[in-house]
């Protein structure tokens, strides 16, 4: 890590450095570097099989990368100065300067969510279908509630401190249900909800874990244009109102181009472009990767898609 890069990415929340993921003979992600700036919406796009979900699984701890560093900061940007010291120390995380640094590649999946506060959604929705909408949001607040219930002991004995904590958790859930327009369905089974509502609920559930970074894997997949527009609004609210950074994988260009600040394009596990939406859209390498056809046809297709 050179000194120059460190200063250039001072406002970064997440740094992905030389991320490599190998499955046997298959190189799924090859030496990928990109940053997610604090308070930004960063999109990760690319054709099917480009390795986008693999990157997500590495960031959220579901895969252990073959090589590379995934560093996340909490609090003040000055903590980046301790990155090398933390890496050499062999520890998972270190707190200093009113902030903390986490090396995600060293943490198991549940700690990435619990301590580094990275929340995620899944490409194929993974709700708890047999539990109610409200219960889904309470499971997301498991760790603070577990603490409030004295690791179950005080809760079984019926201490009032737990009941207070549960009321607060329900209020938080109610607030999110109101935002995503599902308050009237709070007591229905999550599996009973229509597809679009399940997608929104999954985002709300991830938000209930109180994250600093929210990773969304194709949040607009299967949504109609109106739902897609609502999703854009919801994501902008999450960013603007809560100051949470978003990293999203998306195929729906109306979502990507409209709301993202920064785009990284992946093809066969290699980053082929990065930059602002306008720049990426006109990058010939990106167009070739996506369409692999002549320029005129691309323009025709773009015109059709309203870009």
């Amino acid at each position, binding site marked *: 890590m050179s000194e120059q890069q460190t200063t250039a990415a001072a406002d970064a929340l997440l740094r992905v450095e030389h991320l490599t993921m190998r499955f046997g003979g298959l190189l799924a992600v090859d030496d990928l570097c990109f940053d997610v700036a604090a308070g930004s919406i960063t999109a990760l796009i690319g054709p099917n099989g480009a390795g986008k979900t693999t990157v997500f699984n590495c960031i959220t701890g579901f895969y252990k990368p073959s090589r590379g560093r995934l560093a996340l900061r909490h609090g003040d940007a000055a903590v980046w100065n301790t990155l090398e010291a933390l890496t050499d120390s062999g520890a998972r995380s270190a707190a200093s300067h009113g902030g903390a640094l986490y090396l995600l590649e060293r943490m198991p999946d549940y700690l990435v*969510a619990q301590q580094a506060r990275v*929340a995620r959604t899944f490409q194929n929705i*993974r709700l708890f279908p047999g*539990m*109610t909408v409200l219960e889904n949001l309470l499971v997301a607040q*498991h760790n603070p509630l577990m603490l409030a219930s004295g690791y179950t002991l005080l809760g079984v004995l019926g201490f009032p401190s737990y009941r207070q904590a549960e009321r607060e958790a329900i209020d938080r859930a109610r607030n999110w249900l109101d935002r995503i327009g599902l308050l009237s369905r709070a007591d229905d089974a999550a599996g009973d909800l229509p597809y679009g509502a399940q997608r929104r609920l999954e985002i709300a559930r*991830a938000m209930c874990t109180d994250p600093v970074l929210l990773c969304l894997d194709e949040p607009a997949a299967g949504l109609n244009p109106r739902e897609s527009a609502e999703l854009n609004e919801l994501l902008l609210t999450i960013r603007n109102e809560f100051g949470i950074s978003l990293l999203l994988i998306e195929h729906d260009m109306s979502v990507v181009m409209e709301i993202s600040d920064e785009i990284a394009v992946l093809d066969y596990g290699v980053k082929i472009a990065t930059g602002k939406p306008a720049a990426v859209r006109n990058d010939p390498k990106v167009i070739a990767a996506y369409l692999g056809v002549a320029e005129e046809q691309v323009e025709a297709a773009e015109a059709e898609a309203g870009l």
Partner: protein
Amino acid sequence: MAILANSLAENPRNDKPAIKRRPTGLGAALQDAAITAMLAFGLFLPLIGFETVTDIHNDLILRTRWPLLLAVVGAVGSGRLAYALLLAPRLHARAGRPIAAAPPAWQAAVGRWFVPFAIGFVVIYPALAVSIAGKGGSVKWIDNFGIQILIYVMLGWGLNIVVGLAGLLDLGYVAFYAVGAYAYALLAKTFGLAFWILLPVAGILASFWGILLGFPVLRLRGDYLAIVTLAFGEIIRLVLINWVALTNGYAGITGIPRPTFFGIPFNADDDGFAAVFGLPFTPLYRVIFLYYIILALALLTAFVTVRLRRLPVGRAWEALREDEIACRSLGINTTNTKLTAFAMGAMFAGFAGCFFATRQGFISPESFTFMESATILSIVVLGGMGSQIGVAIAAVVMIGGTEISRNLDFLKHVFGPTFDPTQYRMLVFGFAMVVIMVWRPRGLISSREPSVFLKERKTIGADMVKEGRG
């Protein structure tokens, strides 16, 4: 066996197109019945058609039983005919209707009153038994029915935590029951400690073994988990058999201290319970005392489970059953969550084992065979995984049914003096299980009550709730 397996595999395939074509015609029904009768003939020819008997020279000779074979095959064939003509059209009509997601309103009303009524009934049950059957006759009713059923209710509720809530299939649950029983027997005999001190000790030891089993099986799911837990149950039993120096092997442990009423033993001595309270001696007092102990333990199990379901740990168990990967993405430590489920379930089995040892006064590895695990698991599955009421009902039916079958002496007048109804127990169970699986594949009470609600408590239909893969 091969024929049986084939017939089981073939039947659904034969049924489905038949139902779709709606065989309302007599011809189709007759054809169907003939095929079934032929199948039955092939199956029962070796099983019922032939019989070996020893003659007066002590030689084994083969005898045929054609009338009996004919009667059985005829019964199967005519049963199938009746099904095809009468029941199948009705079932077909019902299959067309959409399945109601929530149970009807009367079920909710019954549900509301059922629990207080049932608790009231079990509390006054000994008094009822004494007043109806008298002092001598009621011992059988309280001991064989009341205590025996309550032990299995408690074991069912304990296993329900592991299987029903956390969705972890455990085929070796009886191991923890054995740990509890042997813990009490050995510690009480060696150190002379009292039942109430050893009860928590037995629970702690059992949950320790639950965690010990939990560690190696954390990564396993489904069939693999079932096999390893099954093996664990067998290991514990084999250790109990072979570690003769500690457990006395097959001979078991005798003379296990019986429970005392605040230090007063239930015996015929001058300082016994009856003498101290100026009552005539009868074994009834001890039985009633034991009944209330196991009732309290079972109610404790139910109370704790209900509480746990509303706590984060209980919700995490159910979330684990629904989707483990989603759990981990929400920061839930699934390792700890699984281990607490194993430990909790094992603890209640340990309590039950401790009680079992003090009630019997004698334990041996024979009491902790795989059959017991299978019985407890079938209670949970038949009752409806995750449902406390369903499990209790299933325990009453299964264990009560076993006990009743011991008391059906009048059947000897019908089937002859050598007829022993208890030998047909497994046949009846198997039949009951098939009926339940056809009628309610998710158990008696398969819907799920949410642990928390915002406006109204809506029961969740069985089709939504997952069974868990682990």
